[in-house]
């Protein structure tokens, strides 16, 4: 088995060095984004007060996205982040299930999922710092106790790695299983027929699981984890910790004053 055969094919090279190139997944990702944007503009045009036809479907999805964001992020931020999460989940579900039409799934490429995870990471850190300020962010990171800051830094840094590898591994594994099954079927049918006839129907159960069920679950998980971490980042220090810190500060001040009084007297 050659690892190089498992990666995405490279379509376009830029320059003569061969270091800059566009792979299959990048091209499909751009094409899919354009298609989704065009379909979205078409679906969002010509809206009426009484929904009819395509508008019913769209309203169902948009309403679900707003409800989902409100559940995970709280009322305060739901309106501003719902469009991002809607785009993310729609694109991910479509990108994961491209195996259905015989194209290599876009997210079966670790560069694409790493890019998405980096996007999530930047979104979370930027919004946490913008919302709480750097001091608030640091105070939130050492939430119950000060030494917890190490754990928080580690978990914040590993979050994008696990996010990327989870999506990549699941879709990539599914793709390999479907490919292996297709190869097996063509080998078996080659024994009695020149046309690989067994490949046509037997793969449908695998497609149902790896190209329809798994993509929806993985897209949902990616979105939900981003939302949960965003909320955790923006929430700030818990009231109990703030109360405890205030009390210990007061105690320290009182002790200090008592000492000063003692020295004066």
């Amino acid at each position, binding site marked *: *088995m*050659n*690892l190089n055969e*498992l990666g995405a094919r490279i379509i376009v090279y830029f320059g003569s060095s061969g270091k800059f190139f566009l792979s299959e997944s990048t091209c499909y990702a751009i094409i899919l984004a354009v298609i989704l944007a065009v379909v979205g503009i078409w679906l969002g045009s010509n809206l009426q007060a009484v929904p009819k036809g395509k508008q019913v479907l769209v309203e169902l999805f948009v309403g679900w996205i707003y409800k989902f964001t409100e559940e995970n992020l709280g009322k305060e931020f739901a309106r501003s982040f719902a469009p991002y999460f809607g785009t993310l989940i729609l694109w991910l579900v479509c990108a994961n299930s491209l195996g259905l039409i015989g194209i290599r799934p876009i997210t079966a490429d670790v560069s694409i999922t790493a890019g998405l995870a980096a996007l999530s990471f930047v979104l979370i850190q930027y919004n946490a710092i913008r919302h709480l300020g750097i001091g608030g962010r640091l105070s939130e990171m050492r939430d119950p106790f000060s030494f917890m800051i190490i754990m928080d830094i580690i978990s914040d840094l590993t979050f994008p790695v*696990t996010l990327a*590898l*989870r999506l990549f*591994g*699941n879709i*990539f*594994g599914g793709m*390999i299983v479907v490919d292996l099954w297709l190869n097996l079927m063509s080998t078996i049918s080659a024994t009695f027929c020149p046309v690989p006839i067994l490949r046509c129907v037997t793969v449908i159960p695998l497609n149902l699981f790896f190209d329809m069920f798994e993509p929806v*679950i*993985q897209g*949902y*998980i990616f979105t*939900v*984890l981003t939302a949960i971490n965003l909320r955790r980042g923006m929430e700030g220090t818990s009231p109990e910790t703030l109360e405890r810190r205030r009390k210990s500060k007061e105690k320290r001040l009182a002790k200090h004053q008592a000492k000063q009084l003692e020295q004066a007297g």
Partner: protein
Amino acid sequence: MGLIAIGAGICMGLAALGVGIGQGIVANGAMHGMSRQPEIMGKLLVNMILAMAIMETALVFGLIISIILLGKM
């Protein structure tokens, strides 16, 4: 070379063993919850699938490692 193949097999097998046990425990808890309170079944089901998929990450790491090992053969 044979050792690499054995290593890849063991890696996948142990990962599947741990994840299987963990997912069994999650399913156990979810089933208990569902039988006690059938009205929150939908919510429990979503959370159960979410927890299971997060757990599956370990299995996927095992899969990636064994694929890398097979590539070294």
